[in-house]
Structure formats: C-alpha cells, structure tokens
C-alpha cells in the first residue's frame, strides 16, 4: 500500500508545532541573554554601572588596547588584559595536561578492577562533586597557606625553616583547578577504556610488544576519544574559572572569569565586561570546533 506523501508531510508539520514551546524556551533562555551580552558590548558604560544607550566600540578596543589617560593619542597594547588572557589559556592548558597525566592511570586503575568494584571507585571519584566548590577550594587554601598543613608539617620535620609561600601563585591556582576538574577527565577516559577490548592488549603483548609499546601503540590510540572529550570538558570550565583563581590566586593571579566579574563590579564597566565575556565565548567555541574536527578526522580515518 503506497502512502500519501502529502499526508506524511502534514504529519511532520504537526510534529514541528509540538516542539514550539521547547523552542520558545530555548530561544529566550539560551539566545536571549547572549544577545543582551553582544548588545551591551557595543554600548557605553553607565556612570553607576549598567550601560548608557549610546553605540560605542570602545569596549572591544579596550579589550586589547589601552589609551593613555593624559595623552589620548598615545595608544598601546593593553598588556594587563593580554596577560590575563594568556594566563587563562596557559593555566587551563596546563590544568588539562595535569588532569590527563594523572587521570589516565586513575581511569586505568578503575577500568581494570572487577566489575562489581568499579562502581565504588567511580563513586569515590565523583564524591568531591557533591561538596560545595567554595568549601573544597578553601580546604586547599588551608593546606597551602603559610601556616597551613603542608608548611607546618615540613617545618615540624625540619625540612624547612621558613614556610614556603605557595598561596596566590600560579602553582596554587593550577593545583586547585586540577583537583576540581579531575573527575571530568577521569570519567570520559574510563568510558573509553570500558569500551576497549582488553584482548587487544593481550594481542599486543603476544606480538612481542613491551608494556610501553602496548601503551603507545594499542591503548593510547584506542582511548584517544576519551582523552579528547576529557580535555574539552576540563579546558572549557578551566578557562572561565572564577572561584578557584579568586580564592587561591588572590588579586594578582587573575583569570578571565575574575576580570569579567571585576568589570561588572568595582570596575563599573559593563560593556568591557560584556566584550571580555564574548572573547571567552569565542575561545571556548574555537576549542569546541577544534575538538569536533579532531574527532571527525579520527572517524574519517577509521572509515576511509
């Protein structure tokens, strides 16, 4: 029995209509605020915060450049902003690498436990997620500060005479972020290993590969999708991180998230904050596009 194409089309039309409430919510909730941010980035700052309804590209200009207060003709690169941008990208990249290096053996350990035990280990990995981020960050501060756990212990053992200053350094921020985002690396890596056929590892050993060679030629290529997913999941929240750099980095070691918050707060320059938020979005989207392209290339290689 031949079906009537018009009827099918009509039915599809109805289905589309049913999705409209969801679409309206999506447009208002997702695109709406984004549009406001774009709009604000092209307006002038209001005196008491907020925006003045006057078109200006000054915010975008100030993201990268600065004008001397006394000599407006003297335009220089805004090194403070670029330093924050660079620190954000660099610290996030390092966080991703640390999470990958430490997350891989962790995920491997879990994936090689008997099936019944794996749930317990995964549960332990995700437990920190249930605690407030601020509390966890303060806990790290408690360990790192001059009279904190680590320095007290080292001084008591006589290893050092004076506390090592660790707070408000890139190291502190890095440690905090690696700790906070570790599960986001471990979980996709575990998922990739769980799917992996462990007989391939045996086949590698059987064909004269050493342990290192099996890791390099068999395991790493097979869990690569997990690495890519984990890296993106760690990198994106890292680059916009606010709480961790605020508590552990203090005022000096600012990241992009803190700079944006500053503009909407004490800085009272909402358009600049909005422009910086757009820059953050652009970096994030670029990372996502690179990720999707890398995954597609891998799929192509597998299929072609």
């Amino acid at each position, binding site marked *: 029995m031949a079906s009537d194409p018009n009827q099918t089309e009509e039915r599809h039309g109805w289905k589309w209509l049913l999705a409209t409430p969801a679409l309206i919510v999506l447009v208002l909730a997702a695109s709406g605020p984004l549009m406001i941010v774009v709009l604000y980035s092209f307006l002038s700052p209001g005196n008491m915060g907020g925006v003045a309804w006057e078109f200006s590209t000054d915010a975008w200009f100030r993201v990268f450049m600065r004008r001397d207060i006394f000599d407006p003709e003297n335009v220089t690169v805004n090194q403070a902003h670029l330093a924050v941008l660079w620190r954000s990208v660099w610290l996030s990249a390092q966080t991703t690498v640390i999470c990958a290096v430490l997350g891989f053996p962790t995920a491997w350990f879990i994936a090689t436990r008997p099936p019944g035990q794996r749930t317990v280990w995964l549960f332990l990995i995700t437990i920190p997620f249930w605690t407030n981020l601020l509390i966890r960050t303060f806990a790290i501060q408690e360990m790192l500060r001059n009279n904190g756990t680590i320095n007290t212990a080292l001084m008591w053992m006589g290893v050092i005479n004076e506390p090592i200053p660790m707070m408000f350094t890139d190291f502190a921020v890095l440690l905090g972020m690696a700790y906070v985002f570790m599960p986001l690396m471990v979980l996709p890596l575990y998922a990739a290993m769980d799917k992996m056929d462990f007989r*391939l590892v*045996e086949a590698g050993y*059987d*064909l004269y*590969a050493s342990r290192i060679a099996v890791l390099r030629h068999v395991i790493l290529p097979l869990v690569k999708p997990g690495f890519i997913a984990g890296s993106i999941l760690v990198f994106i929240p890292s680059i916009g991180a606010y709480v961790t750099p605020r508590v552990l980095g203090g005022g000096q070691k600012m990241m992009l998230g803190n700079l944006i918050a500053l503009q909407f707060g004490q800085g009272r320059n909402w358009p600049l904050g909005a422009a910086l938020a757009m820059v953050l979005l652009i970096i994030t989207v670029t990372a996502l596009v690179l990720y999707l392209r890398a995954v597609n290339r891998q799929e192509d290689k597998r299929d072609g």
Partner: protein
Amino acid sequence: MSEPQPTPQPEIEITGLSKVFGQGSAAFKALTDIELNIRTAEFFTLLGPSGCGKTTLLRVIAGFEQPSQGSVRINGQEVAGLGPNARPVNTVFQSYALFPHMTVAQNIGFGLKMLGRPADEVAATTADMLKLVQMEAMADRKPSEISGGQQQRVALARALAPQPRVLLLDEPLSALDLKLRKEMQTELKRLQTETGITFVFVTHDQEEALTMSDRIAVMSGGRILQLGSPSEIYNSPSERFVADFIGDTNFLKVKVVEALTETVNVRLPGGALHSARLPDGLRPAAGDDVSVVVRPEQATLGDGAKAHLTGTVTNSVFFGTDTHIHVNLEDGTPFTLRRQNAGNTAPPAPGTMVGLTLADGALQVIRE
C-alpha cells in the same frame, strides 16, 4: 603405540602442570597434573567441552597465565616467568583481536615492528603474508571493513608473520558459518603444512579435531583423559567420556569370560561371545563386569542365527548418505546402527525383530 626412537626433543614439554584460580574456598582448579609433549611441526588439538581447561592450558603456553605448579618448556627452554612478548609463540584469538585503528597491513606487520626489524623487512614479510592468506587486495582496509572470514585470515597472517616456533589457535573457527569453517579447516591445514610451524589448536568441535589433527588430547575437568591420533581416539576410546564426546557410540554392559594378553572375550547381552580390545593399563579378570563401546557403523543387520545381538527396531532416520536404525536390544538397552544408503533397500519397519552382527574388533572396553 611405541614412541619413535630416538625420541626427538619435543617442541613443548609440559610436566606436572596445575593452575588454580582464586584463593581459599573460592579457589577453582582449572588444570590438574597436566603431562604433555607436543612434537615439532605437528598439528596438535586440545579437544573438550567448554570449561574443560583447554583454553587455560593454551593461555599458560602463551604466557597470559602463569602456572600454579609445574613447568612449561618451549624448545627445551623453561618459560615460567616469561611474559607473552618473550615467548616464541603467537596466538590466533577466538575474537581475532585485530587492532581496529590499524590497517590490515599494519596489523600483520605489528609483531615484526615490535621485534625491531627494519622497515623494508617488515614490508616484505607483510606482503608475503598477505599473499599467503590471499588478502593482497585488502591491505589498506581497516578490520571493520572486511568480513569475518577475512578477519580470520588477517589474524592468522598476523600471528604467522613473526615466524613463531608454535602457533596457538583458540577456537579460531567458531565464529564462522559452516561453509566458511570447512574452507578455513582446509586452509589451516595447508598453512600448517606449508610453514612447518607447530600448531596447537583448541576446539570443542570433535569433527574439526578429527579431520585436522595429527594428534588430539581430549580434556575434561582440567585433566587430559586421552592422548592419541584421531583414529586411536575414535576407534579406541579409553574412557566413557571420550567415547561419548567423540562421535555416536553404543554402550553395552558385558561380562568378561576369558582374559587374554591384549584382548578379552566377553559375553554380550543375549549370550553371544565376542572379542573386545582393552585400553592401556586396564586388565580386567574373568568374571568382571565391564562396559564396552561399539560405533554405529561397526554393526550390520544380519540374520537371526549368526547375529551377536537381537532386538526390535524402534525407528529409522534418513540422513542422506546413511540411515540410522534405532534398535531396542532384548534387555532394553538402546542401540543405534548406521547403514550406508548404497542400494535402495528400505529400512526395516518399526517393530521388526532384527539380528545385529558386529565387525571383528568392534568392541572396545572403556574405563568408567
């Protein structure tokens, strides 16, 4: 069954081997007191039902499992403690375990590459292996893009490429359909003859074992029950399990009337006398009750006077080349005989009284 003299050094020598998994009350003894010599360049089969320990034995030889007791020597060298990458053996896995991220050619060349052979040698051997298994056209495909039978060939080529002393095959044909399996059986036998490599083949398929092997070890419950050539295993099973597992068999309860050196004379149900062969190490005395086996093709329908056994036909099943005729003997024991469908003789109708004549040497005494 005398060993050829002088005995050449076995390719694989296994002595006093046991393997226990787990500990305490959860311990499971997968292999018990395995004594086994595998000769150079023979096609050796480990045959048994699933869970009999045959795959564990193969994995111990490969180095994936370490023995709990006993020793394994390959070419005279003790291999205990050596990992799979330090043993001159390669495995063809049941699931093939081809590397999905490598091409067919890269899979085949992997072993040689890991051995640190120069790139041109790897390429040349890979090309030879592709030719050997007739997969030249598929060299640049990924394993996911070729059929199951082709994956099987690639797995074989990959394991043969490093020219191992011994090739271990773990039920490599079980995933293939019947027609492909028959083809691969011939193919495997050809490869083994061509390469001269010792093959240790694991299977639960008795027909596969009988057609391909030089020698078979029948395993059950972690032990080797019988070791011998396919015809020895088939014609002279020493245990009930072996007789039952391989081919169709009739079991009869008989009484020994006279014990000779190599054979015994037994009284069949119904009173007729017949000679029966003895397994190694079993010497029943006159008057003992023993079990004997008779293969269905060793019995023919004969006339009542000269028949060794008599019974009533229950039914007949047509199998194309032959017909199976099921008979109930006078004492109620079921008996099946197989008759070649040479002429157009119709099988006897159910209920017919028939006599059965047994061939000379048809009876084999078994251990219970």
